[in-house]
């Protein structure tokens, strides 16, 4: 059984930027030296609503990217979709507001030691952590291709500066309002073959992650995906965010996506059992 991210700390940080980007908010936090321990794939848990809030639980967000040489020192970028009451509250906070955060949490994307051909696949705002990952992969000499998908064009998150860190970018929307019409899985196997992809890194809705896993199951491609499950604590104590994952002995365990994830090897996740309970193995 794995343990909580050893670098996780609780800290008060200040919002130094909050701007709307399409359907999302790009929020910049001054986190100081914390950036040194953040890796692509890690997430952050933020207390929302202020002291008298009726929202008692933190909200978890993927860390989009960190920078230790901005004008504020160490900064962390989050891409937040104002969906629920907690994320709406966060998106409404102005520069200068202090937040109570716990970070970095969870596992990170495995970075290859050799230059490889990487394919990064993002669904909706799930693309956010992939741009930070792309930067790291590029410094390791990897070839980085990216596929982004969403239901509509306004839900594609692809910042200009982010596009510079990838060799190619293909966009898919279900309504055809941006890029090609369809889903990221549309011609995935052809892309894998044409570009000799070694590793897929993905982040987005669970159905997308499951579909990618199924498509690559007959190939040699490694699929590292960042999963998404409802969390109450983000630090491994509430046991709500569990996923069925295959162990080395073939049995299945309900693992916490906040501790053993969010980044997991897609081939080990029992996608067929998500939302169910595995049979008891004695």
């Amino acid at each position, binding site marked *: 059984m794995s343990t909580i991210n050893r670098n996780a700390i609780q800290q008060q940080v200040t919002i130094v930027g909050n701007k709307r980007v399409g359907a999302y908010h790009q929020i910049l936090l001054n986190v100081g030296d914390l950036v040194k321990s953040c890796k692509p794939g890690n997430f952050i848990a933020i207390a929302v609503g202020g002291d008298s809030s009726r929202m*008692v639980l933190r909200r978890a967000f993927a860390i989009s990217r960190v920078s230790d040489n901005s004008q504020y020192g160490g900064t962390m970028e989050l891409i937040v979709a104002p969906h629920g009451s907690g994320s709406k509250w966060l998106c409404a906070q102005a520069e200068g507001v202090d937040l109570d955060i716990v970070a970095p949490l969870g596992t990170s994307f495995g970075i290859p030691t050799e230059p490889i051909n990487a394919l990064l696949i993002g669904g909706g705002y799930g693309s956010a952590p992939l741009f930070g990952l792309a930067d790291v992969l590029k410094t390791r000499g990897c070839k980085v291709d990216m596929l982004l998908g969403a239901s509509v064009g306004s839900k594609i998150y692809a910042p200009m500066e982010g596009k510079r860190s990838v060799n190619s970018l293909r966009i898919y929307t279900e309504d055809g309002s941006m890029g090609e019409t369809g889903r990221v899985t549309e011609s995935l196997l052809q892309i894998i073959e044409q570009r000799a992809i070694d590793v897929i890194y993905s982040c987005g809705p669970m159905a997308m992650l499951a579909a990618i896993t199924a498509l690559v199951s007959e190939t040699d491609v490694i699929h590292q995906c960042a999963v998404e499950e409802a969390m109450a604590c983000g630090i491994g104590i509430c046991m709500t965010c569990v996923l069925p994952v295959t162990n080395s002995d073939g049995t299945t365990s309900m693992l916490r996506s906040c501790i053993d994830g969010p980044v997991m090897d897609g081939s080990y996740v029992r996608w067929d059992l998500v939302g169910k309970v595995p049979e008891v193995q004695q």
Partner: protein
Amino acid sequence: MTIPVDLSTTLGNAWFPTPIFTASGCASSGKELAQFFPLKDIGAVVTKSVMTKPRHGRPTPRMAETPSGMLNSIGLQGPGIDSFLANDVPWLLEQKARVIVSIAGETIEEYSTLARKLRSVSGLSAVEVNISCPNVENRGLVFACDPDASRRVIDGVRKTIGGELPIIAKLSPDVTDLAAIAKGVVDAGADALALINTVLGMVINLDTMKPHLGGKTGGLSGPAIRPVAVRAIYQVHAALPNIPILGMGGVASGRDALELILAGASGVSVGTASFGNPTALITIQKELRDLLAARGFATMQQAIGFAHREETP
């Protein structure tokens, strides 16, 4: 300058330097919270209720946030008592934490089996007998809703464990006459009572128009249930003034902890607040000390049940 307040407390023959504990099921086995503060700095770690065998628990979704609270539907996922005693307990004792092991069974015999396994473990402070987990397949198995079944579970544990380890019976507020059930388990050998377990609830998802949780029902926790906890502790302390109570239910500040103590709690477990704030226990402990000092209490124990005192003109 404030006078230092003695925060120490006892449950049966177990002594604790402070009355602020984790709540079972809200701290796993302590390792994760240890990232944020030394576990020896709080009164005790009450571990997640453990059963005889490893258990997967209930399907997801397992949680829903509610106004000032949350529903959970974990269903006692855990490693089983053997793995727990081999791995988790030794680690906790190494941290110099005081450890209260919470046990849960599907049958009266299972509780006795678990108690037998604990008897050979040295260094434990107490055992919490969780007879009130709401997240079981069959509501008929919530022993704490049945006075006779509650008594028989505690009687079995008492006969197995003898007099060395204090037995804390964890009760449900979802009953008609809580004081009667409390008296029953005390007569059967409980040294202390834990009040309250979560309150049975449900959330319906408006997209699917079906119960949101995989297990349909869940246990409501958080500040939303605090008045229920205060009432339950007050009633039981009035009925059984000499039986120590480990109070819990929505405590998120020192003020809340003091409220439970005034109602009659000798110790206070903090559960859901740790989900929102990993250092909640430490903050609550400090605030409680200040609040007691401001009210002129030299010891925490003087404040236990203070809300029950006769008004003297």
